């Protein structure tokens, strides 16, 4: 793994990160740029706060629920679920995509939390065979452009697309005006705190990767990553995706303390970064092998720049991974070391 790699002296971004430059005192260009853009970000967040309360206050009741919350059972989405119910008073439907790799301890958290908050919960489990085929293809072929993968691994990206598309389907079918998720500003761009989930407009940008997945897996990918024309053609208004965690100024400890009363406990049998999916260590491993850096570098570095995490805490998270999980996951996805080497070669040849 990438333990001894050269990193920025302030954050943890490493020398293989795209377009990184180490400037004075070993500080990276992203940290130096951050110093200049803090003011702009603050005004963006203030605007987002106003826009979010306006959206929620003026919501029109069209169906049973106000919001579908993408709920992985991790600390961030647990906190979002709590905020949605307790801070904003929304009537929510929690939604979990069961990819077959959610740790048992995470399921316990999920059940306890939805019960304590008294919300309805909807679990969708794609067929294991199809899910694995999509995950496998994502890991060992160049499904995504490398710019898409600067802060996420390829399997996570496919899985999150599945979550997003399924949440949008639920929202459209049940006429739910908002989709909430546990994204933070290190994970999504500041312009994407609130956006209209305009399926047709965004579908174009996904076409290339979708076609690659279709080539590898077959048309069955459409069931998980597309919405049928019959449903889309009926749409009068697309729901808004609202990432309410982005406007909260909270540390990890504060989040954990806030959700502890709901019965949420920190999972111990999974690695430090993602607290619930057993694919995570493997996904990071593939990303490091292929691109030479950890996909969480950007997100954790963002937290350091915001003063929400120390550099040594972030390094601990990146280095603390359950390597013993890698081999069994590779076997379950029928992936061999050579498959990873060949996708690396494909990406390298494009540089």
């Amino acid at each position, binding site marked *: 793994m990438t333990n001894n790699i050269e990193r920025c002296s302030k954050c943890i971004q490493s020398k293989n990160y*795209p*377009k990184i430059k180490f400037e004075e005192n070993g500080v990276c260009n992203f940290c130096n*740029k951050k110093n200049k853009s803090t003011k702009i970000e603050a005004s963006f967040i203030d605007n987002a706060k106003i826009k979010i309360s306006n959206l929620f206050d003026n919501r029109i009741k069209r169906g049973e629920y106000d919001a579908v919350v993408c709920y992985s059972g991790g600390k961030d989405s647990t906190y979002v679920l709590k905020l949605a119910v307790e801070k904003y008073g929304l009537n929510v439907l929690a939604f979990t995509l069961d990819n077959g790799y959610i740790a048992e301890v995470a399921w316990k958290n999920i059940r306890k939390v939805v019960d304590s908050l008294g919300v309805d919960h909807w679990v969708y489990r794609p067929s294991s065979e199809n899910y694995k085929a999509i995950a496998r293809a994502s890991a060992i072929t160049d499904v*995504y*452009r*490398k*710019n*898409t993968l*600067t802060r996420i691994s390829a399997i996570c990206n496919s899985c999150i697309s599945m979550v997003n598309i399924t949440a949008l389907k639920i929202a459209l079918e049940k006429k739910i005006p908002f989709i909430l998720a546990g994204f933070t500003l290190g994970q*999504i*761009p500041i*312009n*994407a705190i609130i*956006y*209209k989930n*305009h399926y*047709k*407009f*965004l579908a*174009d*940008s*996904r076409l*290339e990767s979708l076609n690659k997945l279709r080539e590898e897996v077959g048309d069955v990918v459409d069931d998980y990553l597309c919405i049928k024309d019959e449903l889309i053609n009926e749409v009068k208004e*697309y729901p808004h995706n609202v990432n309410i965690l982005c406007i909260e100024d909270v540390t990890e400890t504060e989040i954990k303390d806030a959700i502890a009363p709901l019965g949420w406990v920190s999972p111990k049998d999974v690695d430090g970064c993602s607290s619930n999916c057993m694919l995570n260590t493997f996904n990071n491993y593939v990303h490091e092998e292929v691109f030479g850096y950890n996909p969480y570098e950007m997100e954790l570095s963002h937290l350091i720049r915001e003063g929400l995490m120390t550099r040594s805490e972030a390094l601990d998270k990146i280095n603390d991974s359950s390597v013993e999980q890698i081999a069994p996951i590779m076997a379950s996805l029928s992936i061999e070391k050579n498959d990873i080497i060949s996708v690396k070669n494909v990406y390298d040849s494009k540089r």
Partner: protein
Amino acid sequence: MSSVMILEQILNFIVDTYMVEIDEIPLNESLIDEGIIDSFGLIELASFLEKAFLIQVNDDDLTRDNFSSINKMIALVDRKKSHD
């Protein structure tokens, strides 16, 4: 505002946001096809155009054609501005 000024602001935004050099940005090609942006990039660009040029980008404006190149985006801004 002239088209050149609009171009300059869009280019600056893309350089700052997507880790590309100015000479790598095509004016008539799709930024998606060139691998510069993904779907979040489209969301960001639409939101950037609204804020930077004080225009309202409606659902009807969110089409493949309007965002298919930087020159098309400039044309969208021009159109919106002249309707104000």
